[in-house]
């Protein structure tokens, strides 16, 4: 159950996608998500799907692993699709009892589902192939210009990277505490809703305590190493674009251009 959350996790392996400059991946994902809402025809989605497929293949992350991440948001996806399916006005297709499925509703909900699935796969792929550290660096560098407007860019990206870094740690901790309580006869799966919520207490109390302790330890460790925010801070591994990254930008631009052309031509 906990193992299904792949969003925000890093999948360690060596691949072309992993080695790509994190800024390319960040901007690429961002523009990919925007373009998903620009295209609205079958050929457009085919191009988007093909692009995503190539990226997944280049990442060497097993396909099943990425799909597992989709499972957790299945409910959200279904709700969105159902709402769109039944509540879009237009030319009726089928109707039973009080519900009517319209032609517009059907096409719109399929589009929405495809967009959401692609969106989640794309963002999952980004975090799976980019370590939290790299992601922070990329974010800081991309948002760099905002520093002039006194936006605390460094602090924001630091908070984000710590949050990301703590997801797997907290999940591991949850797993451990759950097992320890199960060894004492706790039951997290059966019973009605109220019992299930009550059963969470022996899990949540130790989890919060350990989260606070970890946060405290981390703050102390950072202070002990004289962390003082972004002012005058240099990097051990500054981000430098290499030839492959420039090429990747080229491919990305070509892809975006193709999508826009498809939209404008109305194919």
């Amino acid at each position, binding site marked *: 159950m906990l193992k299904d959350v792949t969003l925000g996790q890093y999948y360690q392996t060596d691949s072309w996608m992993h080695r790509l400059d994190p800024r390319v991946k960040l901007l690429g994902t961002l523009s990919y998500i925007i373009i998903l809402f620009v295209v609205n025809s079958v050929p457009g989605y085919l191009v988007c799907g093909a692009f995503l497929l190539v990226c997944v293949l280049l990442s060497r992350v097993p396909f099943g692993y990425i799909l597992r991440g989709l499972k957790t948001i299945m409910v959200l996806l279904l709700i969105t699709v159902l709402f769109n399916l039944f509540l879009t006005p237009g030319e009726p297709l089928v109707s039973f009892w009080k519900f009517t499925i319209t032609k517009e509703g059907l096409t719109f909900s399929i589009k929405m589902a495809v967009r959401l699935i692609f969106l989640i796969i794309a963002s999952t792929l980004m975090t799976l192939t980019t370590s939290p550290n790299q992601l922070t660096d990329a974010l800081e560098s991309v948002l760099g210009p905002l520093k002039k407007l006194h936006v605390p860019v460094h602090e924001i990206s630091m908070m984000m990277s710590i949050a990301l870094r703590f997801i797997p740690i907290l999940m591991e901790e949850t797993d451990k505490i759950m097992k320890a*309580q*199960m060894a*004492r*006869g706790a039951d997290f799966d059966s019973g009605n809703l109220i019992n299930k919520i009550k059963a969470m207490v022996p899990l949540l109390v*130790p989890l919060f305590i350990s989260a606070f302790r970890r946060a405290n330890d981390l703050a102390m460790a950072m202070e002990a190493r004289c962390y003082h925010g972004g002012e005058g801070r240099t990097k051990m591994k500054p981000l430098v674009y290499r030839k492959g990254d420039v090429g990747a930008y080229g491919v990305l631009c070509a892809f975006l251009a193709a999508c826009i052309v498809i939209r404008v031509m109305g194919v």
Partner: protein
Amino acid sequence: MGLKIEDITYTYESGTAMSVNALNHITTEIPDGQFIGLIGHTGSGKSTFVQMLNGLLKASSGHIYYNGEDIDGDGYDKKALRANVGLVFQYPENQLFEADVLTDVEFGPKNLGLNESARKARAEKALNLVGLSEKYWKASPFDLSGGQKRRAAIAGVLAMEPKILILDEPTAGLDPRGRDEILGLVRDMKNQLDMTILLVSHSMEDVAEYVDRILVMNAGQIMLDGTPREVFSHVSELEAVGLAAPQMTYIMRDLAAAGLPVRTDCLTVEEAAAEILSHRDAIPAAEKGGSHA
């Protein structure tokens, strides 16, 4: 009857690039009434192994039988198994959650469906067993010292009155005094309660004195299995996997190498001292004089 482990394998994260083969074809038996030490280097699979024994992890392949019944069989009552096979986790104090110690210890018996007076009685008995005096019973578990927290957590498992008690590194992170206290406690429990005990540790000294039998794990397999004497006679194999025999074994081995005809399988200081003294006559007179001067 006890536990019978047949050809158990376990893989973490199977099917991904991070997959780890934590256990490789383990077959062994844990008969009733034994006091067993399970030792192995960090990452050798000890914690994984003990979590299989009460059904917290399901074996990737192989079977485990408790009193002849397959614990992964259809309809097998896992809750009853966990009441019979008590597992105290590594750093068990992380599981404490109630407002006071007594209520926390009652958590296990409560899950077994006991009524209020019965679970209170069990909790008090368990707390007395681990030597946590009455003045702490109403205190918040988070106000206790590290060693006291650990006792409270052990009491939490003992209160379920298991037939088999498994302790995963109960002395990790304690000072030498706390360590001796906990180990003494385990030995007393063994004598008083007639339990089967499996004590996980990576220190030979911890287990050498107390246990009947030692299992040595390495890279997910059981490498040695026998009485402490048998196991510690394989010093070089132990060293090859990052473990060591008790200090006394080394002293006796060096003495033997230097020509004193002593037995080399002494485990405790007392035993070694008696053995050396019994060979007083073998020491040449001149050397005896020298050592007195």
